């Protein structure tokens, strides 16, 4: 009996690793084939799932072979990417800001394979490596316009996991928009140091609300739920201007001014079609369907200002 239990325990532990797997779909022809490496699960109903679905759509529409590997840890990145390159996939996408160095390492070993650093801006100077991201700057600016038109206390705060390059650009554009509308708005930004810790995000939001910040602008992954919950619990003291996801739709948050939703599916599709494989860095923004704006509780003046800002960005009248 003890041996059976021991074997069962070993099986359970082994199974936890096996589940973090991947597979390939589509034809056996490697022309245009694409492989995507994900840091999380392809069923996470967030960034990983939507970019993966974009790749699947490209595969179905263009008839190309696709493959993926999910829940890839930092220590596994190079090996997984190299295996896809050795298997003959023509385009390999590292889905997330943490894949840059690993992609660049393997890209130097396989000069005839195309690599895409997704949610990144750096091509590492390699001709076979491209970068693509949604425009955090544009998202920050339109978010700032919504926030500036919704704040009553003139106190607005941004909450993020870590200020990487994209989040820093977003913060600067957000602050610029606030002060373009009203230079007197007080702005602060806070890091929770984790993208999935909803409890810390909830507490960070409460700390800001206690200090009178009445508009919160979260740029978080799953932890954004904590900010949504804090705004709902604040009994009207604070509202959210969402980014990355539609906070009213995804979290059922009622205290939402509006959201700048990232079109991850569209980004995954574009990356998989091979259109971005030119050794350049690309930003997908308002002009090319990279961002969706949802308005929930914004004044008419606010809506008009938002529309104006959106048009100005597309026309190039606002430089970020």
């Amino acid at each position: 009996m003890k041996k059976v239990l021991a074997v069962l325990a070993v099986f359970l532990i082994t199974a936890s690793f096996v589940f973090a797997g991947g597979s390939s779909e589509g034809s056996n022809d490697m022309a245009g084939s694409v492989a995507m490496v994900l840091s999380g699960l392809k069923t996470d109903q967030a960034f990983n799932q939507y970019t993966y679905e974009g790749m699947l759509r490209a595969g179905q529409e263009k008839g190309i072979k696709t493959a993926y590997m999910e829940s890839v840890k930092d220590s596994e990145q190079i090996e997984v990417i190299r295996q896809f390159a050795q298997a003959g996939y023509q385009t390999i996408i590292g889905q997330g800001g943490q894949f840059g160095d690993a992609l660049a390492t393997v890209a130097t070993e396989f000069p005839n394979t195309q690599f895409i650093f997704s949610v990144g801006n750096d091509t590492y100077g390699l001709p076979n490596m491209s970068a693509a991201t949604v425009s955090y700057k544009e998202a920050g600016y339109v978010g700032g316009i919504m926030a500036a038109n919704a704040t009553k206390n003139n106190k607005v705060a941004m909450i993020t996991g870590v200020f990487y390059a994209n989040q820093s650009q977003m913060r600067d554009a957000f602050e610029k928009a606030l002060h373009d509308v009203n230079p007197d708005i007080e702005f602060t930004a806070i890091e929770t140091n984790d993208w999935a810790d909803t409890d810390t995000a909830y507490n960070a939001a409460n700390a800001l609300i206690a200090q009178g910040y009445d508009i919160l602008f979260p740029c978080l992954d799953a932890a954004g739920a904590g900010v949504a919950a804090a705004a709902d619990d604040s009994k009207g003291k604070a509202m959210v201007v969402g980014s990355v996801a539609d906070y009213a739709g995804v979290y059922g948050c009622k205290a939402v001014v509006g959201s700048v939703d990232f079109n991850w599916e569209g980004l995954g599709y574009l990356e998989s079609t091979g259109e971005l494989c030119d050794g350049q860095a690309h930003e997908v923004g308002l002009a090319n369907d990279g961002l969706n704006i949802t308005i929930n509780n914004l004044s008419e003046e606010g809506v008009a200002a938002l529309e104006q800002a959106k048009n100005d960005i597309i026309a190039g009248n606002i430089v970020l």
Partner: protein
Amino acid sequence: MTSVILIDWLEAILRWSAPLIICSIGEVYAERSGIINMGIEGIMLCGALCGVAVCYYANSQVAALLACLVLGAVLGLVVAFLTVSRRTNQVVTGLMVNMLATGGTEIVFSMMAATRHNRATTFSPLFPEAMQQIPFIGKIVFAQPWSTWVAFILPFIAGFILYKTRWGLNVRAIGDNPQAAETAGISVIKVKYQTVILSGIFACLAGGVLTLASSGYFAAGGMVNGRGFIVMAAVVVGGWDPIKTMLVCVLFGAADAAQLRLQTIGSAIPNQFLQMLPYVITIIALTIMVKRSRVPKTWGAAYDGRKD
């Protein structure tokens, strides 16, 4: 404004510390009996998901806590079987439980789309809302969910059981000299099983409190964010005493709550350093206190009843 920040900080300290204190109760018992349950980080994660999922689907907080209790007992039993009966390395076992929990919760959570979009009902304050209007202490004390009150009472009960009951004496005796305890007629294996199962139960309940006393949402991956490991450090710094460990948990909660607030008031200290604050304090406390602590003599050692 300073008083507003101070009140908010003090209120946050109590709320943040509560899950750590609950988790520490079981770990104190387990380590006092000689077993280090390093899997509490993963078990907390399981409890966080279990609490949200059961509370949402069954629409009952009681059911959620009962489910956490049962799940914690099962996970504790697995750890006890491996570390006590099979005498596996306690560090390796704990790490495997944590990895299993991370992968397992990701898979289970991916099948529960509704809990991602809908909030579970969170714990309500124990006292009427009007009491929160009492100057200064009103918000600090009376805005707390009932779980915070329970968390701060539990260490005193745990201390009483550990020092004033026969079972508590057995736990301490087994941690210090299991062979002598066995000779005295105490079932060492049975008591070790009991303490490790208790550590699983309290860790799982702490995970449930982590989600249900705050946001009411679960997030796969980093939800527990090292709290289990902090509890393990707190138990050592607290000298394997429930009440002293509670104070260390409060110290960590204070540091963590402070670093967020210091970011908002434009502190000249870089954010990265502020975020290190709770961990720096933990390391300093460990360095100072460890020499003064009385370590259970068979702490982390496998017990082989066949030896003399």
